[in-house]
């Protein structure tokens, strides 16, 4: 069995998870500080959660296509988004970003504002309040978000197939492999990939459950 879909899935999801984590936490921080913009940004950043993946794929194609400004700009640096692993990362990023953003914002909101007030009165800067107080206190609540982000990125299909395509060995992820195998009548191959995906998803969810359980016990 060619295991390249597993490798491609892992690669795309891991890269996407790292980018989602950094940008999601940063965005959540900015929205936590500036409460006025909260409703607007919450709406915008949660939108990918409800949009059909085909719509996301379509929008990504418009954004990164050869004729777009962004696409042209990136291609000057030799970065090609369409029909490449980059595209798969972009698709995974877009669909999993809301998960990280929502979890991180929830975790930041859980941080008792009295610590932030105390930090301000002793003269700590915004940045050091973020790195030394907000993030360390909110951190345990974000672990679950990271795992779920990874799992969601791994499961992405619709947007991926639209922007990254279905090139075996290059952009074919596991979820796309299941689809392709079924299309070509290879039930056995499809069921193998289904088993792999089930295992990874199951492990992700159970680790989140166990972690939350552990946090709950620790609080008591």
């Amino acid at each position, binding site marked *: 069995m060619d295991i390249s879909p597993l490798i491609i899935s892992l690669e795309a999801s891991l890269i996407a998870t790292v980018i989602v984590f950094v940008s999601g936490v940063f965005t959540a921080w900015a929205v936590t500080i500036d409460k006025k913009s909260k409703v607007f940004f919450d709406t915008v950043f949660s939108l990918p959660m409800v949009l059909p993946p085909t719509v996301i794929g379509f929008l990504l194609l418009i954004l990164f296509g050869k004729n777009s400004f962004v696409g042209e700009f990136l291609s000057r640096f030799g970065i090609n988004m369409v029909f490449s692993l980059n595209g798969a990362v972009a698709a995974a990023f877009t669909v999993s970003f809301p998960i990280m953003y929502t979890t991180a914002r929830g975790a930041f909101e859980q941080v008792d504002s009295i610590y932030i*007030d*105390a930090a*301000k009165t002793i003269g700590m800067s915004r940045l050091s309040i973020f790195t*030394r107080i907000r993030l360390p206190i909110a951190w345990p609540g974000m672990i679950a978000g990271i795992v779920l982000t990874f799992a969601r990125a791994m499961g992405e299909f619709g947007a991926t197939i639209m922007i990254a395509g279905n090139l075996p060995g290059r952009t074919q992820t596991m979820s796309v492999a299941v689809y392709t195998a079924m299309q070509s009548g290879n039930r056995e191959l499809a069921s193998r990939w289904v088993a792999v995906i089930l295992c990874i998803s199951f492990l992700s969810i159970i680790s989140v459950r166990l972690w939350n359980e552990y946090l709950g016990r620790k609080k008591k």
Partner: protein
Amino acid sequence: MKLTVDIRKKFKDFELCVDFEAGNGVFGLLGPSGCGKSLTLRCIAGIERPDSGIIRLDDKVLFDSSAGIDLSPQKRRVGYLFQSYALFPNMTLEQNISASPCGKKNCSEYISLFYLNGLEKHYPHELSGGQKQRAALARMLAAEPEMVMLDEPFSSLDRDLRLRLEGKIAEISRDFGGTVLFVSHDMDEVFRLSDKVAVIENGRIVDTAPKRELFEKPNTVASARLTGCMNISSLVCDEQGVFASDWGITLPCGHKAGYGYVGCRAQNFEICSEKNGADVFECEIVRITENMFSYTVFFRNKGYISAGEGHTLVFETDKDTWHKLDKEKLFLRPVHEKLFYMVK
């Protein structure tokens, strides 16, 4: 050093409107919970923004709504000791104290100053109540504040520990030298620690005075009540003298035109053998409460009922004196020099 505060902030069903000046030494803010004491401190610290007004520390303007000045809390350099201490739970004691920009160089000095040696690597949840308070004080002072504010610093401590730490706070306030704002709802605490006191009720300052003056002769009914005086009566002035209409006695004092109320603390009664004057109560005892070292006696002037609640008075006496008294024939006279008169 002088702190000038004159701010207003409106909420849906509460309005803060305070105005005071505090010099060097401890300035106490006394008031019931929810009266706006902590909110005032939060406005001074810059955590909360008043709707309008001015906050100045000497020549440094911290807030001025008309000039559009609103310094960040970081730039105000106002130390704030929170009621719950707010030690960062993810940091050790040492990290807490050195968290501020100035804290790094001051850390070891303040650890020994507050007898925290040996606890450097402990996390806040591993410290006792008293240790937490000392750690929070150390963290606040290590940041080199220009003034200091203490928000109910003893409310989460046991009584025993409370009295011991009061001494420490008094010492720190003296050594600090600048302005110390101290907020509490406990009048005994405020009396022990403060030099000057402002009484707050419902978002407004009802009285400001040096503490002795305030506790001995409050200027308003609200401050009399909040400093623990339970005997207050309206006054009616006529040719015969001054009639305390809630108590039913006439006070043989000079003309008191303009004053509407009189007050007498529960400790300030003298015991008489008979009703030898118009200012003597013939007591009808309503209820007696036994305290550890004294009795609190609720009484009425016999046969006198007035419209308000004020006709039941409170008298406090030590146990020996009380045991020797004839409870059937008890006559009490308010000590005239200790009575105080209030306009409103």
